Structures are given as C-alpha cells and as structure tokens.
C-alpha cells in the first residue's frame, strides 16, 4: 500500500445557477494573458449542450483518455508510445482554434477617434489572432441556457444513445449547468501522453501541473486529456492547465473558483488513496464498474491502519486530521452523493459532482403536484427516465440505478427537512426509505445547505518547513537557529494550522502575530481581541513557573 493524499473537489450541481462567476474570476486570476485568450481553466456548460471545446466528450473522434487493449491491459486510447512519437510532427487529434473560438476584441478606439459623421461610430470586432476585422460566428457558451441547443442537439455527444427519446421542445426539456475545471485525475492520461515528461502529479496533494520549463509544445497532452482541460498557449507554444490554484491551496485557501462561487456549491478537501491500486482500478473490464472501483480506491481516514500507513508515508499529522474532516470524503463515501464526471474515460477524475435534482423537481412542480413530497419525487425519479439516463451518461458510464439512488436521497432530504422547517412532526420513514437515519440526514442537510466556509473548505496548509531550511534554497537566515538572535522575528509557522482550529482561524490573528514583531516583550501572550472564545489557547493564563506561556 502506498498512501497518497489528493486534494479533491465536489460541486453540488443542484445549486449552480450558471452565473459564470467562477469562470470570470479564474480567467482574471490565471488566463488574462496574450496567448491564453481562449483558455478557460474553469468553464460552465449548459447541459444538454456541446460543451467547451465543442463536442469534447466524443472520444470516438478525439481519442482522449484510456482504453483497454485486447488482452485487457490499460493503454492510451490514442495509441501507444511509438505511435505517439511517430505522429509527433502533426498531432492527428488536436482541436483547432475553431473548436474553441477565435478570440477577438473590438476597435473601441474607433468610438473616440472617428471624425464627425452622420452615423454613430461603431466598434467593429477585430481578431486577436490576425488583427483583422472578423465576423463573429461562435464563441464559448453560445448554447448557454439551451440557446441554439434545439438546432444543435445532435452535437451533444452525451445525447447519442438516448437522442431519439429526448424531447427538446421548450415545454418538455430539462437543463442544468456543469462547471468544469481540470479533474486532477489519479490516473491522468495527459501525464501519460506527454512525450517530454513535463506534466506531473504532485506527490503531496495530487495536483497535476505542467512544468513550463520542460514542456516542448508537442501538444500530445491536449489530445490525451478526454476533458480537454489542457490548453495550448499559442503565444508561448506551451501547454497550460488549471493549477487547482496551488499557491492558494498551499496557504490553506480555497481555489479562486470555489472562493468566488456565488451559490457556495463547491467543497474542497483531502482524500487518501492507495496509489498502488490505481492502475488495477482503472483496468476494470466493465465500464459500469469503474465508478465503484474508483470509490473503493478512496481510503477511510478514520481507519487506524490507514492513519498509520499515512504517517509512514510521511503525510503530516495535520493533513491526516484534515482528511478526517474532509467534506469531500463525506459527500463521496458517507452520504454516497458525489459522482465522478465520465468514469468511463478511466482517468479516475477527482472533481466530483452531486447530480441535480432540479430537473425532477421542476417537472413535478409543473404538473401541479407537491414537489416537496417524497412520494411524488420518488415516483418522478422512477418515471423521468430521460434526464436520469442523461445524467448517467455523464456521471456513471450509463448506470441509471446509481444516479436514481443519489436523487432519491436528495429527494428524501428535501421532503424530510421541509417537515422540520415547517414545524411538522418529521416522518422518520423518509430517511429510512433511503437507508439513512434521521440524524445522518440532518447532518447531510447541514453540509449541503448551510455549511460555512470552514466546513466547505478543509484545506491544510502545505508544509514547506523542511524545504525552507534546506541549504539549497537558502531563504533562511543563519541567525534564526534555535535560540539565536534572529528567533524573535520568526513568524510562528506551526501556529498556522488549517482554518478552523480554535484561535487561529481569524486571518486578523495571523496578521497581528507578524505585526507585533517589534513588541517582542508581548510574545507568548494572547491578544484577547483575536480570541474567538473557543478552547483555551496557550498564553491565556501565565504558566505555573511564572513565565508567560511558551
């Protein structure tokens, strides 16, 4: 067993209103540079719809991800290493800029500098690739909110198997939003596709990154990733991808997309998995077993054996504690709500989704029945095959039973909590009917509906202490040795645990710990203004020997 920690995310699609705030803030943070105009590390798609880039899920066309060879071994769907090298001079499966969109700006200057004329001056669109005026024909999210989907429904690869049954008439349709970032897979096919070995999975937190100095621009990762979440910076000639905002994660802060999510639908936390069993899990013959195999990879952080093994593997103690509090683990393993996006790609994606109940609720509501009633919702889940088949195509390789089970749990929670909120005696049969007890269901409700910042994001700060003190980095002052004259100015790294521990969660407290460097006689005492009232932090009372606390 080789335990590794993975920073993972869950998105609750029931709460996504498709506002694109995540996409915009991500773009402002990461891809507002030349060469990355069309690059959206985070994008939000309306489903049914084509997605971004158009039709990326059609792996018959793009050959992304993994497949099983004839003898049952896992291989890259696009072909082995020799084939990849042989086709290196022209990647046969690379999306063109037209599969994304040609980036453009407007000649705003024309509005100000146009001479006096009869007609109001305009700002015609101008291509950012050629600098010439252009006709805008397509862009990201042009099928947002089903706009254009009626005409282009056949272009959604996920509708292929159920297309003839789906009615896209306005009255009978369903839709939801799907925000997507890089999946930071356990078995990343982009890493495996990179001829230069420039893409790697970080040992500490599983974040998949591109080494910009090693990337040579062969573009194989872009075709290798079935989610098309590696982009080509056409200015620098290098691959770029979602970084899971690793500089923020290392400081215990959530990603920009999660931080700014208006619906607060994203959860970030650690999961532990057994790296030695990943290939085996990804090689399960039946696609429908992949979800279970992936779920089984995730280890129980409360299991003493797992805790021991994690410690042996060098995972710091506060990380093990964070894994135990991980909302992601709870949603995947305890409540069985979260599903991976396209497990059939065999990459073991680590951004999970709670499928939306809203298409079901909407239908029940429209028929005039009580859409908060468990019986009505259960019946609708059994009846509404099409949205459920569609969700199954996205999240369970087509297994509708799993999706229906998840939706039943959410429907049960909706009905059960309605009674509690209305002051009606809650019906305990409702949670029992989906295999939960009432307390568990209330906990689940709390996590889904009202979880605060600290509960949604349980992110232990990265440990850089060892690296910091290494000679090679040399960022440390030799006077800062134990008891040395520089010690007074050292900010207390150890006290910067993950958010949520008593007395340390307030960012102001952290700041003041650094600010008071000039008042070293106060060191060790507690500033009561920063105390949150919980627990008994050191320094609250003088110690027995008359010294202030350590």
């Amino acid at each position, binding site marked *: 067993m080789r335990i590794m920690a993975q920073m993972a995310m869950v998105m609750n699609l029931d709460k996504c209103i498709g506002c694109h705030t995540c996409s915009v803030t991500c773009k402002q943070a990461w891809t507002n540079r030349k060469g990355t105009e069309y690059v959206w590390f985070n994008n939000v798609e309306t489903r049914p719809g084509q997605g971004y880039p158009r039709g990326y899920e059609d792996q018959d066309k793009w050959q992304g991800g993994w497949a099983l060879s004839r003898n049952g071994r896992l291989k*890259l769907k696009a072909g082995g*290493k*020799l084939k*990849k*090298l042989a*086709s*290196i*001079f*022209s*990647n*046969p499966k*690379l*999306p*063109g*800029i037209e599969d994304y969109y040609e980036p453009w700006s407007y000649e705003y200057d024309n509005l100000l500098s146009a001479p006096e004329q009869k007609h109001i001056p305009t700002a015609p669109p101008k291509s950012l*690739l*050629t*600098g*010439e005026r252009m006709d805008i024909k397509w862009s990201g999210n042009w099928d947002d909110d089903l706009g254009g989907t009626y005409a282009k429904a056949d272009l959604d690869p996920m509708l292929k198997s159920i297309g003839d049954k789906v009615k896209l008439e306005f009255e009978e349709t369903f839709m939801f939003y799907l925000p997507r970032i890089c999946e930071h897979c356990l*078995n*990343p096919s982009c*890493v*495996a596709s*990179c*001829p*230069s*070995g420039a*893409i*790697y*999975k*970080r*040992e*500490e937190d599983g974040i998949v990154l591109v080494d*910009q*100095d*090693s*990337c*040579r*621009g*062969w*573009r194989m990762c872009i075709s290798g990733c079935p989610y098309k979440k590696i982009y*080509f910076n*056409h*200015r*620098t*000639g*290098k691959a770029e991808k979602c970084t899971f905002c690793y500089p923020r994660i290392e400081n215990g802060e959530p990603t920009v997309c999660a931080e700014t999510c208006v619906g607060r639908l994203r959860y970030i936390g650690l999961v532990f998995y057994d*790296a030695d069993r990943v290939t085996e899990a990804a090689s399960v013959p039946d696609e429908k077993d992949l979800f279970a195999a992936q779920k089984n990879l995730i280890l129980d952080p409360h299991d003493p054996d797992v805790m021991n093994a994690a410690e042996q593997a*060098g995972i710091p103690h506060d990380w093990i504690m964070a894994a135990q509090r991980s909302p992601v683990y709870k949603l995947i393993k305890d409540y069985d709500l979260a599903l991976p996006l396209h497990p059939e790609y065999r990459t073991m994606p680590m951004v999970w989704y709670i499928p939306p109940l809203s298409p079901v609720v909407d239908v029940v509501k429209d028929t005039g029945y009580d859409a908060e009633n468990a019986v009505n919702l259960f019946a609708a889940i059994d009846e509404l095959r099409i949205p459920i088949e569609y969700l199954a195509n996205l999240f369970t390789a087509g297994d509708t039973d799993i999706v229906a089970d998840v939706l039943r749990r959410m429907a049960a929670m909706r009905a059960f909590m309605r009674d509690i909120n209305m002051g009606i005696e809650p019906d305990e049969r409702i949670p029992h009917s989906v295999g939960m007890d009432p307390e568990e269901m209330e906990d689940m409700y709390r996590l889904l509906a009202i979880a605060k910042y600290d509960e949604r994001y349980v992110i232990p700060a*990265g*440990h*850089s202490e*060892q*690296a910091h003190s*290494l000679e*090679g*980095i040399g960022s440390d002052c030799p006077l800062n040795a134990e008891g040395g004259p520089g010690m007074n100015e050292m900010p207390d790294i150890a006290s910067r645990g993950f958010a949520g521990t008593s007395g340390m969660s307030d960012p102001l407290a952290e700041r003041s710990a650094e600010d008071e460097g000039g008042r070293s006689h106060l060191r060790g005492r507690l500033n009561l203004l920063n105390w949150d009232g919980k627990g008994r932090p050191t320094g609250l009372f003088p110690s027995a020997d008359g010294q202030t606390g350590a």
Partner: protein
Amino acid sequence: MNSPTVLETFLWVIIPYMALAVFVLGHVWRFRRDRFGWTTRSSQIYESKLLRIGSPLFHYGIIFVFLGHVIGLGIPKTWTSAVGITDHMYHFMAITVGLGAAAATVGGLVLLIYRRRTNNRVFGATTRLDKLMYLMLAVVIFAGVYSTIFDSALGGYDYREGVSVWFRQFWMFQPDVSLMAQAPLGFKVHVMSAILIFALWPFTRLVHVFAAPLGYLTRPYIIYRSKDWQRQPQRRGWETIDY
C-alpha cells in the same frame, strides 16, 4: 597544392569554426537562460489541414536526408569499397533514396511556407527570425538538391573525394581549404548556407530538434514529483555530509 587565399581561408576555415562555436555555446546559453522558450512553437492550433500533410512530409524527409548525410560525409570511400560496395551501387542508392527524401523534404517545405504565408493566423504568429530561418532552410535545401543533381549526378563531381574529405578534416582540425575551394559553386553555396544556419540554429525554434523526446519510450506513464526537495532523490553533488 596551392596555398589558399585569404578569402578561401576565411570562408572555409574561420567561418566554419566560428559557426561551430556559436552553435555549441549558443545552445548552452539558450538552455541555461531560456528553457521556457525551448519549444516547437507549433501553429497547428491555427491551421491543421495543410500541416497534416506538409509537416510529416518535411520532417520525415529531412530525417532521411540527415541519415544520408551521415553516410555520405561520415563514411570514407575506402571503407565502402572495402566491404565490396562498388561506386555504381553506392551512387544508385544515393540517387534513388536521396532523391526520394529530397522530394519529400522540398515538397513539405514548399507546402509549409505556402501555409505560413497564406494563412493569416499562422503568418501573424511568424517572427522575423522565423522568416530568416525559412529563407536559410530553403537556400540550403535547394542548393543541396541542385548540386546533387547537376554537379554530382550529371556533372561528374565526386563529393566523396572533395567535400566529404574536407568535412572529416574539419572535425580533426586540419581542413584542407583547397578541397572546398575547388568544389562546384552549387556545393559551395550549399555548404556555406548550411554553416550559416548552424550558427543561427540556437537562436531559432530549430532548437526543438534537441528536444526530441526519446526518453518517452522508457519512462513510466505517470510521473510523480514532490515539491519538497528533501523527498526527491538526491542530486549528484548535493549529497549531505554524514557526520
């Protein structure tokens, strides 16, 4: 053997060694200072239809051309005749395989230059250095094809007793200038433009030749890397002292 003129020495001794120095030191400098810029700077995302034909045609062609040069320049005539390969057999191979490779290279290059010029997106991403590089490549390749056909095959010049000997002497630091000075003009242009492109090499996208990812064949699929240096295998020369 007449003693070479100043110009001949300059052309076939000084410039070649200077180009060699620039080539080697240039790559060292580029690798140390600009690893981020070490890329193919592919334009496939802009245009793919012509590239799909032109690029493999050119690259595979030029690889065969390179191998042909290794044989033609590297292996002395006495060696091939010692193993029983007659001049006739050698030339037959060189002309057929060589011209096939040359046709692929020239065809690919023409297609690629046409694509670069006519597609506005691709042309917009073309730097001045790119244009100079394309010009030099075209000169080298066309001069090479011209001299092979007209000087060597039809003209009766045996480069294996001229240019090739000079080339091997060059690496032994004893180049006989007269061998180059007496070569036909086509060969002179070919060799000189090749020397100049080698000097230009480290500063252009041609550096991607030295990024050929052959290590891909032997490495495991999934790569893990630690951000913590302590967890990485120790680098040579950085072993800690064991007190």
